[in-house]
């Protein structure tokens, strides 16, 4: 795998794409189409939000793109590599080297300190951390004085910021965050979102974030709207009101569908 510092990734390129992705659960009567033919390109150096009603397939889409799950059909491409034909071993390597994650909760290994957690993907790859980059990331998340602490000694917001730092430290091609602020209050949320925004602006990182929060989505460059496993709309450089408006319409449509 070629190592490619994020800074060199040409903006405007495609970091990851879904090509007619479908994902179904169950069979026959009980079949659920979590994804129903999603085609989308996620642009390098962009901060993308994925929104939609609960159950619309947001997490499923992310998981398929992040090599955590395999689609039923269609293709997921990360950094030019098609995931369909990769074995578990290669998927593991890909996740370790080209993808970063932030989950809603339980992001950190409880037995390791903040620093060790941040460096985990590198040490698993037996790679030497780039100290300068590490310092830069740690400064950016504002955790310099917390590096020796274990997760149990940190607040939820701090833990999420450690998770963000971990996601960035291996210089991945793309970072996926599934409701990273779902468990946080507004102050902590702002800290985490601010950091993600800066990683895009300052380090040229590509970030994709699932969220229900219009405020969080307003930090992004582009919002994709999902409903019933399909991309139904998108916004560029959105503001809060636009998002609220779209969301309301989606919800109405969903309600109407449920009623009808």
């Amino acid at each position, binding site marked *: 795998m070629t190592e490619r510092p994020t800074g060199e990734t040409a903006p405007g390129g495609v970091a990851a794409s879904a090509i007619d992705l479908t994902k179904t659960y169950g069979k026959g009567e009980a079949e659920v189409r979590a994804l129903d033919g999603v085609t989308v390109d996620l642009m390098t150096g962009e901060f993308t939000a994925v929104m939609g009603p609960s159950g619309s397939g947001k997490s499923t889409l992310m*998981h398929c793109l992040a090599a*955590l*799950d395999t689609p039923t059909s269609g293709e997921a491409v990360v950094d030019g590599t098609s995931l369909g034909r990769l074995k*578990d*071993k290669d998927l*593991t*390597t890909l*996740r*370790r*080297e080209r993808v970063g*994650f932030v*989950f809603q909760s*339980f*992001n*950190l*290994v*409880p*037995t*390791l300190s903040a620093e060790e957690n941040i460096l*985990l*993907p590198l*040490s*698993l*790859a*037996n790679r030497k951390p780039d100290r300068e980059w590490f310092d830069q990331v740690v400064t950016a998340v504002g955790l310099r004085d917390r590096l020796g602490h274990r997760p*149990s000694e940190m607040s939820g917001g701090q833990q999420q910021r450690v998770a963000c730092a*971990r996601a960035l430290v291996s210089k991945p091609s793309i970072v996926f965050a599934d409701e990273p602020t779902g468990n946080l209050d507004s102050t902590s949320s702002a800290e985490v979102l601010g950091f993600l925004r800066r990683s895009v602006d300052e380090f040229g990182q590509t970030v994709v974030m699932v969220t229900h929060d219009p405020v969080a989505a307003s930090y992004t460059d582009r919002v994709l709207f999902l409903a019933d496993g399909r991309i139904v709309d998108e916004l560029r450089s959105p503001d809060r009101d636009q998002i609220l408006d779209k969301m309301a319409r989606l919800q109405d449509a969903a309600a109407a569908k449920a009623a009808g």
Partner: protein
Amino acid sequence: MLRLTWRNLLARKVRLLMSTLAIVLGIGFLAGVMTFSSGLNKTFDNILEGSTSDAVVRPAGDLQGANAGVSTSQVVTPADVDELAALPQVKEAVGSIDGVGSFLLGKDDKLVGGQGAPTLAFNYAPSENIAGEQILELSAGRWPEKPGEVVLDTSSAERGSYGLGDTVSLIVPSGKDPERKFTLVGTADFNGGGTAGATLVLLDTAEAQDIFLDGQDAFTTVSLTAADGVSQQQLADAAKTVAPKGFTAVTGDEVVKESQQQIGQFLDVISYFLVAFAVIAIVVGAFIIFNTFSILVSQRVRESALLRALGASKRQVTRSVLVEAFLMAIVGSTLGLLLGLGLSRALAGLFRTFGLDIAGEVLTLTPFTIVAGYVVGIVVTMLAAYVPARRAAKVPPVAAMRDDLVVQEKGMTRRLVLGSIAMVIGTALAAAGLAGAPGTDAIWIGAGAVIWVVTTAVLAPVLGHPVLVACRSVFGRLFRTPGRLAGENALRNPRRTGATASALMIGLAVVSAVGVLASSLGATQDKIVDKEFTADFLVQMPTFQGFPARYGNEMEKINGIAEVSRQQGSPVSVEVPGRAKPDQSFAAAVDPAFFKVYDLKMLDGRASVTGDQVLLSKSRASDYEAGVGDTIEVAFPGGRTIPLEVSGIFEPTPTTSGITVPFSVFAEAGIKRSDSSISITLADGADRNAVKSDLEYTVKDLPILSVQDKEEFKDLISGQVNQLLYVIYGLLALAVVIAVIGIVNTLGLSVLERTREIGLLRAVGLSRRKLRWMITLESVAIAVLGAVLGMALGLVIGVVLRESLKDDLTELSLPLGSLVAFLVVAVLFGVLAAVVPAIRASRMKVLQAIATD
């Protein structure tokens, strides 16, 4: 609540199965050895009762030479038998010749049997046992009818690979031709079933007289069958009146009782020995049950809290856990009892290879075994589950709302304080034992050791810390991140790791302590052989049985030999003033050459015996309160009691027995001459190898009679020590297996508990292989901890025990090689224990693992 308990049991089938396995194995072992012991007793009882007639006319006195492999010269003539038969109380009188000192060779010229159980050679004559059945039952062919024919017991014929019509070789004690050939005409067994490992050689009467009585037309004993309506006692009383001089008649019941007592002691030792290992296995099992419940309870905090919040009382929560334990105990004990039945059959199979035959039909679960199995299983399980159950009840209801789900565990301080106090008490007990407190020293030390073991188990979370930290740093260095994570995981829950390791610790502590004792015993014996066995060669049977005197006669003629000293052993009983029962002991007859070969350290008197004299060891002399010049009354097999004058007292030595007499005394007592050991010194300038091969040539027809030099003699002794050691290791292996199951269980539960964490690690790039490594290394860390604690403790216990046995175990030797081997084995077991949990963990789907809560 009961329904909830039931649901919990079902929901955790696999984990419960694993911890039930601990009960199953522990109870299985207990039930197995109990069944086996009772089967062993029954086997002997059956044979004794099946092979004894209503009354027996035999030499007077307590000592029956034939039982001890000594033959005496008293005989019964056919006229005496006729006289007995003529008594109105007697339905039938059958004269028998019980031959001693013969050996059956197999087709391959190797000895058949001879591994402890005797070879019984006698003349076949039909006679009835107490129950009125024939003593011997033919299983194939026919009985011997003329000289040159033989019938063997079924198992010996098989072991010797003989079929009907084959030529059978028998080594006999006297006569012109030491190796006699016979034609196998039949096979037969005792009526009670089997022979308990003894080899039966049935001969024609004339031939038996030729071999064992130098051709005299006579018998050694007479079996009597009572006429109708005559009791055993009446029969014996009547027979006594006509019994020849030096003979008496005893009832069959009495004969059976005597033999039961003799064998009983030996059987009791075996069963205590086995039960001790069952107890160890159960204690180890208890640790695992305790640990499993601790983990189950801590994983169920939220549920317990919810129950409490919904209004369940503490007692209800405790009870629900205990009921779960109870159900487990019932299932585990039931399976254990069944396993025990199988195990007892396997043990019987093992003993069969040692020559002890136990029939399958006597191996059944007795009501006592069943009750004992359930009681022990239930009590141990409930006790082990009690502490975790209490802990479950202590979960505060608010924990249901909280996110950070950890059972509040008390700090280690209290544990440390209590543990240290217990350590001190244990040490005090052991020190008291060493300092010579009243009673057996070993019991004091044993009590101290038990306290040490328990305390070490309690303190394992603290004591183990440095070991685990060392593991973490070694693993981290060798295996990078997975190693580091494994070390952390082993350290993150010290109680759990400690309790899991403790199960292994117990097994290894016993193994190492036994190892120290065995190794010290070996070293001591080497030293003794070096120092005391001044002979150049020793000739003896591996079983120390007697062998025909003609071999010694031949050896005396060999060139290059300075001295040939011959010894014969016999049981004796000695009248002790002021004691109701005579002391049963063992005497050695020696020739004058003995004193030239061996240098007895005399405390009083002279180092020589002639005529009616005896030399006593210091301990015998003090037992009999006899000094030089005193006379002691010594009774010999065959009924003769001879007063002997003490001519000297010596420092005890393994080269001769505590009662040493000249051969003339044995002759006077009517004991037939044979040798039990021959000591030979080389003449100056003689060629050692040439002499040795000459000596070996003389014994070529009795292959098991071996000519040993010092080194070989040492090897023989250490071989015997090792054999016992391996049996002990084998039995302890079960405890270790249970401990390994404990590791599997703990790891399995930990893996489940850390599902999300494992998912996360996989998500951020931990490969399956490295994940398996991580779990394997955690397992190895636990195993190493158990091994290190166990071996350290075992060494201490072993050294202390050796110290208390200093008089017998003069040398201290540490089995360092074995200890290294144990550590390696522990690591291997660690790897083995991790196989299933590691595979399960690596099979987890990343996404599902992350989504689990």
